[in-house]
């Protein structure tokens, strides 16, 4: 008689940890978990919104419409992180997504960024790339990789902090430059604001 009683008493105790353990969710089953902002860094929702704005602007631009069926070659060089947040990983994702979108549009022949990065000299140049791309790099892009247009840009921010609030106003700036003329053919600025309160 004692054993079943003891077991009955023990069972809830054994089950208690199961009630208080971490719970996991899958975004494919519960899309709402992607929605809330959990930090002031750029998350998937921010990147998707930024990319959608960039693509919509680029594809509707007179420059792209003027290309016709030619499918010129293009590469995305770098999106530099000039912000006060550690978002290099997010910017790599943004770059990859933007490349994918260029491929899917069918309007471009895309030279993969990783192809450029596999060249040590170009990789070093891209690492130190600011807003301006130097003539030697532009020449190398055209001569060695046959690139006609390149995209580069940066994310900057204005970060402010008070006792309880930290607000980060991001500005994503991207532009398309023509290698042969060094002229800017398209550029856009996208604003994203994130805030965290203690």
């Amino acid at each position, binding site marked *: 008689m004692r054993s079943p009683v003891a077991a009955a008493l023990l069972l809830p105790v054994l089950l208690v940890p199961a009630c208080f353990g971490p719970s996991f969710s899958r975004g494919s089953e519960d899309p709402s978990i992607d929605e809330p902002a959990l930090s*002031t860094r750029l998350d998937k929702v921010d990147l998707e919104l930024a990319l959608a704005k960039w693509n919509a602007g680029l594809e509707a631009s007179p420059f792209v419409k003027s290309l016709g069926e030619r499918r010129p070659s293009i590469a995305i060089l770098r999106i530099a992180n*000039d912000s006060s947040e550690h978002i290099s990983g997010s910017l790599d994702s943004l770059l990859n997504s933007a490349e994918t979108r260029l491929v899917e549009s069918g309007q471009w022949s895309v030279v993969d960024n990783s192809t450029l990065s596999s060249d040590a000299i170009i990789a070093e140049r891209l690492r130190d790339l600011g807003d301006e791309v130097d003539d030697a790099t532009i020449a190398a892009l055209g001569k060695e990789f046959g690139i006609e247009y390149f995209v580069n840009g940066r994310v900057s*921010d204005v970060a402010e902090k008070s006792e309880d609030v930290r607000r980060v106003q991001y500005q994503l700036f991207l532009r398309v430059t023509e290698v042969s003329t060094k002229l800017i053919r398209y550029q856009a600025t996208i604003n994203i604001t994130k805030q965290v309160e203690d």
Partner: protein
Amino acid sequence: MRDPSAVHGANLPWRAALRAVGGALLLACSAGCSATWEERIAPVQQAFYRGDAQHAAELLAARLADDPDGPDAHVLRLERASALAAADRNAEAAAELVALDDQLEVLDYSDLPVAELAAFLFSANRAPYRASHVERVALNTLNLLNFLALGDWEGAAVEARRVRTLLLQEDIPEERRDASALAWELAGVSLQLAGRAGEADDCFRAAGRPDLRLAPPAGEGSVLVIVQNGKAPVRVQAVYRLLLGNALHRLQVPALVARPSRWKRAVVLLDGGPVAEAPVLLDLSAQLRARYDRDFPSLLAAAAFAAIPRALAGQAVQHEIASHQGDHAHDDLQQALGFLAGFFTEELLAEALPADTRCWTLLPGDVRALRLHVPAGTHDIAVDLLGTQTRRLHWSVTVEPGGFALVNAITALEEAWQPPTEPRTQDLTHQPAGLAALELLEAALPIKAILEQHPHSDKQHP
């Protein structure tokens, strides 16, 4: 001669006294008889200061594994980041501090209401750790060094911008911001390396005397020598007395105790020849001391606030025994026992609820820096530590043309561990800090009314 029956009789006042003190002891233990922070962190410090940063990091990882979301998690992670960086595990240290940066809250003692501060510092259930402003700025400054050690200029530049935001925090009056020439200088170096010349110039300008500004001439590289010297002061349990009502009461206050370094000067040598003494760019000890001195009246007031329930408990016990109706009713022995039981009740309760002395103990006392321009190639860099003893530390670094290398000397690894000295007990009633504390306390609570008008308030200081 005393009647022996009174010694063993049922109406003995000391039996009541023992019951009262025993009850206080039990209450105290149930309230959380716990070791102080300095006792709990001592094994980590012992490993770190004997030069075994790896073991210190392992000890901290084990503590965190036991209670990853506990109230000490954030301060343990700060300590672990220091240990990881000292063990040349900069990537892990950087990741730890980046994650903490979003989570760590800051507590400004001087801005908090007395009751809230008392709840934070003297609660039986420790509140989640909240850092001081000095620690908060140190987080980004030291993380900047992690990224520089990793050669990740962009990561260092991010930390530079974060520290800049902190240093310019607009809701804090300028005189209360923690100026840091080191933070500005390192921010300038990081932004310079990341190719952000304009931002770098702004930071060097803000540094006031830009010792680390000049980039190397063509064909040369630069070596930044950082000397994290000594040990930052730490908080330890101190007992002070303050006249509250009509009796002196025990206050347990987190006191700041200096841990002087063995070395006063750090001279940098390049390929065997002395170059210059590395100047102090951040005096953390002085900053922590200045903050503490400013906050001390608030800390005392909070300690006094926390002492009130203990004082009332002690008074209640004293009154109960003094008014005990037995063979010794109202005689001197009963009065004395009443006083002692009340006194011990208050002391035991205080002993069981130590003040919160948590702080980032593995921080250096000060940070010195010197930037050398060197021809491309491999060089022997040494730092001569001069003081009561002399010690030479060596590194071999290879620098590319236009390249950069970081040498990060942490002298505490050579210093050995010594327990911090507890300050002596003092009566602060008539000292400026004590008077300021009483003012703050009176503003928060009618302390005199509570203690003097309390029906049991007949306890006098012996």
